[in-house]
């Protein structure tokens, strides 16, 4: 491990860092579809909560991008 290509590390960073947020957004999406299927009359409320949650999860990926582009 004397010399590791920085591009390799960057690729690994974005690849591994994308796993968590991807799974998180997928879980949010599946729960939203389920919830809307159960009671479609409060769809607007469910969607606004879902967007909050997506924003919270997306921030993790933003940190990955931040580390990637600033080093």
């Amino acid at each position, binding site marked *: 491990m004397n010399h590791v290509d920085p591009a390799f590390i960057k690729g690994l960073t974005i690849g591994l860092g994308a796993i968590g947020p991807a799974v998180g957004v997928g879980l949010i999406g599946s729960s939203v579809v389920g919830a809307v299927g159960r009671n479609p009359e409060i769809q607007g409320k469910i969607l606004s*909560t879902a967007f909050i949650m997506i924003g919270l999860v997306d921030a993790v990926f933003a940190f990955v*991008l931040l580390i990637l582009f600033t080093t």
Partner: protein
Amino acid sequence: MLAPFLLAETQPLAPQTLFKLGPLPFTNSMLFGLVGAVFVLGLFGLAAKASRLWPKSRLAFNVETLVDLVYGLMLDSFGDRKKAAKHFPLLFTLFVFILINNLSGLLPGVDSITLTVAGAKISLFRSWTTDLNATIAMAVISLATVHYYALKDIGAKGYLRHFFADSLKNPMTYFIGVNELFGEVLRLVTLSLRLFGVIYGGEALLSAIASLAGNFGWAATLPIMFLEIFVSLVQAYLFMMLTASYIVMSTTHAGSESHSGAATAGSS
């Protein structure tokens, strides 16, 4: 041809100094933040001037629709008209100011107009929310408001009771209380870093895509632009809703937390 309107390279993490006001460095993000503040003030001043019972001007009508929309959201999360009306001005200001500053980073020429100061080429404008100082300042303002109203509304004893909620004879209470106090500091970090990271990361992504696509940068960045518009909206909304739910959580008494509507969003 389109080169002046695409980002040449990623902005450095810290904003660069344009000139010095005494000991205070005046940075490019501060300049653009001032421009954004003047724009928001002018927009809402004009709308307030033109506002009537039956508004004739389109601007006043649209601004009133936006205010009404956000006020409805606040009514939902506070569940109390008086409290919502009290905290609405700060929350709406945060929302509009963050939204305008997020979106203004996507305007052509914002990062790409450069000038030379002291031998270094720096850009004249830089979006206010891509500066960590700015987002920390806004997070400090919103959290100071939260703690001020928590102390004012439920008193010092109730305020401490939020952290040390259980019986004081139980040593576990102190452990949880210290953790909660630490979480209070962490709120500041997450609130500011989330906004900064998302907006700065987005702009860095735009410039990276533009440089990867070469001559077709104008086409390749278009879908990313739409993503950025969406993300800007979500982040401004999130900052406002998180501040609102922090206020709701900390100004209700410890026993009556169960019926605060927006408390779920603040658990991160």
